[in-house]
Structures are given as C-alpha cells and as structure tokens.
C-alpha cells in the first residue's frame, strides 16, 4: 500500500472525502452508543435534536460555538505560519481577566467602554503570546513548550486573583469576580433571543481573518514563512517580524474568546469559565484545515456535538463523554480525509 500525490484533486474528491469522514464519525458514534447499551439511532437522534432541535437548543449551540470560533481562528492563524500556539487557553483567560477588571470598574461605561474593554482584552492576549514568540525568534526556545505551560500559569494567576483582590465581596464567598457593569455588557444580537454580540464579533473576525489570509500582504508573508522559512528569509521576508505579528493576531483572537464569554455570556469571571476552549480550538482549526470559513463550520459542529451530547445524556442515560469520543474520532477521520484528498492510495 502506497500513497501517490494527486496533482489536481477534483471537487468530488475535495467534498466527498470530508463527507465520508462525517459518515465514519456517525458510524463510530453508533457503535459507542451500542456499547453503552442504548439504541444507536435514537441516541444520535437525541444528540441532533439536543443540538438544533429547538430554538433554545440552537441558540445554546451558537453560544457555545462563539468562543470556539475565536480560539479556532487563533490557532488557524498561528499554524499557517507554523507557529505552534497551544496556549489559546492562557490567552483566553488573559482576555477574560482584563474584561472582568475593567468591566467592574466604575469609570468604564457605555459604548466607548465596550470598545475599550475589547481592545484591552485582545491586547492582553497578544502580550501573553508575545513572550513565547520572542523567546522563539531570539533564542530558539520551542513555543510548543512555552505556550502550553503558560496555560497553567495563567490559570493559577486567575485562581490567585479570584481568591484574593478580585473576589466579589457580594459573592457569598464563591471565587468569582465582581459582575461586569450592565452598560458594558455585550448586548443581545437580536432582542429577545439569548444570543449576544460575541457571536457577531466572531463571524466578523472570521471574515477579517479570511481577508488577511487570502488578500493581504501579511497573509502572503505568513504562508511563505510557514511553508519554507529559509526561502522566505532569502527572499527578504522579515521572518521574525512576521512571526511576531502572527503571534499578536493569534493571541488577540484567543483573548476575544475570554472577552466574549465574560462580557457577553456570563457577566463574571470564574475559574471554570473555559472547559478547555483553548485546546478545543486546536481541534476546530485542524477540522477546518486552517481555513477561517471552515473554522466557523467546525466550531458550530463541535459546539453542536457538546450541547447535543449533554441533552442526550440527560434523556438517554448514555454518558456525555461520548461527545469527547465523537470529536476525537471526527478529528482523526477528518485528518485522514484531508490527507486522502491530496494523496491516493495505491494497492500494490
């Protein structure tokens, strides 16, 4: 068995294989449900209705997808430059922290306040990734290690602050921050629907990232650096500066996930703000093949699986861990499918 490159993969190949990956995921899910002693079709049906079956469910899925779009974009932008940012979780918490501090401050109010908090949060995330990228470009320190470890550092810092200076005096002893003032909360996207402007911002961010990757000089530079650093350097692409810019954008996007969760959904910062949105962002970006439009689709899919599985678990008694297994298998099948789009298998 060997792989032969496909020069120009056709439309059937490019769409059919990802579709086949989706089918394989469903089959795997069925087997998992079967092993849990439930009716596979009913279980999958419950996941689907749990994700999109009602207005409430669909809105919940969109809400859950919002931070995943941001972290997915953050990872997609960085991975294009082969800058392995595994630290979206840390950048998310940095953004959330700044949002909680500024949002509860009495002098930050109104629309300027909303914008100020957003910018400050993005800046905080960008700065969190700036350290690792400078260590990488100046000293050759592996960013996988530094960004990954910063996740724990940031979480511990947040924990310390929530138990200390940021602890809400009115919080009855719970480790949470004082609530974000009403005037600087992200408003509802449509009045009466439980969906905040964070989702809108995420879609706008995806559009801007697409513009940057496909049309802008920086996107071209990022791809050049990612695909062949030596050739990029030789041709005069300022590799170090491109990596720094990439890191600032990536860190900023991840931080907006924290901003949107605190200022949009929760209104306060707690230690369980993110159930691993930063890490799941890697899955989202990979499922999307690093394409910003794909990130939106993949984030909706991943959020749907999570939300749907929770609902299914309550109704059918199958553990909601099935969501993690489904996502893991979806990722593996999709990575395989992407490979098979570019290579055909030749038997003997």
């Amino acid at each position, binding site marked *: 068995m060997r792989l032969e490159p496909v020069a120009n993969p056709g439309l059937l190949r490019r769409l059919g294989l990802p579709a086949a990956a989706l089918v394989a995921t469903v089959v795997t899910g069925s087997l998992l449900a079967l092993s849990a002693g439930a009716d596979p079709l009913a279980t999958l049906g419950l996941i689907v209705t749990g994700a999109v079956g009602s207005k409430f469910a669909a809105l919940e899925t969109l809400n859950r997808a919002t931070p995943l779009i941001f972290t997915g974009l953050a990872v997609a932008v960085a991975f294009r430059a082969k800058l392995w940012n595994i630290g979206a979780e840390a950048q998310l918490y940095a953004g959330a922290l700044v949002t909680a501090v500024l949002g509860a401050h009495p002098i930050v109010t109104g629309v300027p306040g909303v914008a100020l908090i957003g910018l400050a949060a993005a800046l905080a995330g960008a700065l969190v990734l700036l350290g690792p990228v400078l260590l990488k470009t100046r000293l050759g320190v592996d960013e996988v290690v530094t960004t990954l470890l910063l996740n724990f550092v940031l979480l511990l810092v947040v924990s310390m602050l929530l138990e200390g200076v940021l602890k809400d005096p009115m919080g009855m002893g719970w480790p949470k921050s004082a609530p974000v003032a009403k005037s600087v909360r992200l408003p509802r996207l449509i009045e009466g629907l439980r969906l905040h402007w964070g989702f809108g911002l995420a879609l706008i961010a995806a559009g801007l990232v697409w513009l940057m990757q496909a049309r802008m*000089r920086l996107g071209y530079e990022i791809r050049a650096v990612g695909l062949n650093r030596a050739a990029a350097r030789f*041709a005069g692409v300022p590799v170090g500066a491109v990596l720094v810019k990439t890191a600032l954008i990536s860190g900023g996007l991840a931080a907006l996930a924290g901003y949107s969760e605190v200022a949009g959904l929760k209104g306060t910062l707690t230690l369980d703000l993110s159930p691993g949105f930063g890490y799941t962002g890697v899955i989202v970006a990979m499922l999307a093949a690093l394409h910003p439009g794909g990130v939106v689709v993949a984030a909706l899919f991943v959020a749907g699986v999570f939300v749907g599985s929770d609902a299914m678990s309550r109704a059918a008694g199958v553990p909601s861990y099935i969501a993690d297994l489904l996502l893991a298998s979806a990722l593996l099948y999709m990575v395989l499918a992407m490979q098979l789009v570019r290579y055909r298998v030749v038997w003997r």
Partner: protein
Amino acid sequence: MTRTGTAREIVLRLDGITKRFGALTANDAVSLSLARGEVVALLGENGAGKTTLMNILFGHYTADAGTVEVMGQVLPPGTPRAAIAAGVGMVHQHFTLADNLSVLDNILLGTRPLWSLRLNRAAARARVRALAQDFGLKVDPEARTGALSVGERQRVEILKALYREAQVLILDEPTAVLTPQESEALFATLRRATARGLSVIFISHKLHEVMAAADRVVVLRHGKVVGEVATADTSPPALAAMMVGAEVALPRVAAGVPGPVLLRLDDVTTPDEGARPGLKQVSLDLRAGQITGLAGVSGNGQAALADLLSGLIVPASGRLILSDEAPADWNPRAALAAGIGRIPEDRHRTGTIADFTLTENAILETYPQLTRAGLLDHRTARRFTEELIADYDVRCPGPEARIRLLSGGNMQKLILGRVLEARPRIILANQPVRGLDIGAVAYVHSRLISARDAGAAVLLISEDLDEIMGLSDVVQVISEGRLSPGFARGTMGAAELGQWMAGAGFDHAA
C-alpha cells in the same frame, strides 16, 4: 551494440512504459534494455522523463502501461521492495541517509527484521569493509553520516545498494553534487563495479561524462526515446542535437567592457560555520559590464561569500562597500534594494517555495511593491508572471500551478526571470546551471551575458571550471576562504587554476 560486441545476459528490460500525470505524458512507450556489466546513460533535457522512468522501474510510481523485467522476472508494479529484492538499487539525486546515524547503521537500516535482538554488527562491518575494498569506495563504516562530505555520502548510498546485493544500480544525476575530482573517483568506481558484473543506469545531461562513463546512450525527449547509440559511435555534438532536437550553438562570448566598481569587499572576514569555512580577509571588486568567475572546489568559502552578498550574513570584520559607502543595515531586503539580484545555489530549498504557485514565487522578492493599503495586487502579480513565463520560456501548466510540479530547469528559468526583471546592477549567480540540461544551460548563460552587456556586474560561482573559463572576464580562485588575485580572461589555463584551487599560490602571496 555493446562495447564487447558479444551477446550478453539481459539483466533489465523496460517494455513500452507509459506514464501520464494529468495532461502531461511523462513517459510515452519507452523501452530500454540493460546487459550485465554494461553502463547505459539515460540522457535528456530537464522534464524529458528520465527521473519518472527510473521511479517506475524502482517502484516509486506505477506505470499506466508497460512492464519492468529484472533477470527475466516481471516485477509487480509499484512495489519498491520487489525491485530491491530482485536486485535493483537506486541512488537518488537527493540522498536518503539519516545524518545522526553511523555509516554502518545507515547501510543496515531496513535490512534487519524489527524483532531480531542482535544486529551482528561485526559481521556486517566486515562485509561493508570488504565491499568498500572490492569496489574502491573508501569510507569509514563507523563515521557519523552527518560529518561526511557529499562525495562520501554518495559512496555510502552506493555501498547501501551493493550491500543489498544489487545487480542493477541506478544513479540519478550522480555528478550534480560532486566536484570534478569526486566525479572522476565515481567513474573509477563504476568501471570496477561493471568489471564485477554490476549493471548501471546513469542518468545525466552532462555530455562529456556520458561519453566517459557509458557504453551506450539512450536519449529521451518529451518522454519518448529519440535515439540509442553506442558511445563509441557518437560524439557530444551529435548527442546534444538528439537531446534538444537541433544543433546547439554554444554562445561565443566576447569580452565585456569593464566599467566602474559597483561592489567592493574590503578585507572582509566572516566566521566559520561548522565545517563550512568563512571568508578570510577577502578583498574583491565587482565591476559593471564584467563577469567575475569564482573558481574553487566546493566548500571553500563560496557559501559564505554568496550569503554575504545575499544579505544573509554580515562581515565580522572588514567592509562591504556599495557605491562608495558601506550600507548601514545589511539583510536580504537591503541587498535587493541595493540592486543585487541573487540566483541562489539551491533552487528547491532557498530559491522557491514548493507549495506556492508560480505567481506567488515570482513576486517573492518584489511583493512589497505590489501592496496597496495592505492588500496584494494579485492581478498585476499574475500579469507579471504570465509575461515572465512567456519571456523566459518557462514550461508549466500556468501561473496558478504549484511550482513543485516544474522540472529543475523551468524552476531555474522562473528564478532567473524574477532576478533579471528587477533590473539588478549586480548579479550573484551561484551555480546557476547546476543540474540543468544543455538547452537550459545555454539559455541561462546567454541571459547572464546580455545582462553583463547591459552594464551589470556579475559574480559567477561555479564548480565547473569550463563554465568559469568560458564565461568570465576575470577569474578569481577561492580556497579555504582565501581569494586569489583576479586573472584576466585567457591568462590562466585550467592546470594553473587547479594549482590555486589546491591552495598553492596563496602561500607565495602570503
């Protein structure tokens, strides 16, 4: 007809091999046979289908039609193991050795079952030593592969094939990476090996090597066999005519008219980088309207000089002077801004980005000028590339194709176009024709000469002394990072330059 004229055992037969990649027919009903103890040269321009044919023979590609027979047995297509088992060994243009392993480990790699507990290295080492002795392949089995020279690595690749009891050895452009001396040693090895019954297919487009090394020549053009002759019955011009389909006139180079000094190195020293020597107090003048040829054995400081002019490194001491002043900031973009056009030594690693399209590669050095408000002007970039493709005769599926699909010659033409269209005042041509076929060589040379005649200062770095002596108005020799004085065209013969290359003249000068 073979050299001996007697009928000999046929060890390899390719019959009607056809391979298509999309619309391109890389091999069109190619047939070829190889007798025991024979060296057959496979000659053809870049993209003529030589490498594809060998990849099919070795099982890397599956042919659309045709069969491969080794020792009378038809091989199952697309199975490298079957080819190895039948006794076919291949030495690729780009070596496939693990740098961090010893020579012996590289040779043994893949020959032992995974679950065998003992390697029995002593016996293996003895066998490698014996093979090395028999075939005159001098190399230390315990040396770390990463520390070896290119010539030594090639010997390891050949030993690897012999260790696996190869009866047929395929060498894909074996001399492309070798110095003239190393090439000579390789030919001697091949003569010993064929005397012992090994058969060799030698892929090349260097005519004099083909004449020296092969018994028979098979010429490919556009994927078809267009000629098959014994080397005794042919001549380099006849082969060249077959290859390109017409008699090639090598350009007759008139002397350049030297103008003012455009770039000056003043007592420049750069640090050594591992085994790669830096420059040692080098002074050099590059004049407008003149080609300066840099002769020397590879690995004597050419890379440091090229990196310096490319903007990749800065002098540790001494000065680089452009138009009477030393640039404040020296990097690749500063070099481009100063009007230095750079043809890099390695077009795959530094010259192009394989997964970029032709357009994206064509604007790699000029894209800042194609930016409006942060947006890249794709339309202008594409139009520029279309013109480049037409003007420089780049054969390709189109401007939006990935450059990895192009042959080396066409890739080089695109790089040449990218460099020359920027109208550089100074041109660094580092091994500009390495691995190219005759047609492309003549083309690149004539473009460099017309750039010179238009007033550019050209620095030509090459390990091919004929190329240097043929093109250069001034020849300078580099040896262990030191630069000889300039010798005007025709004042030095190859033998005298060879003395300098070996380091002889420097001791007098010092």
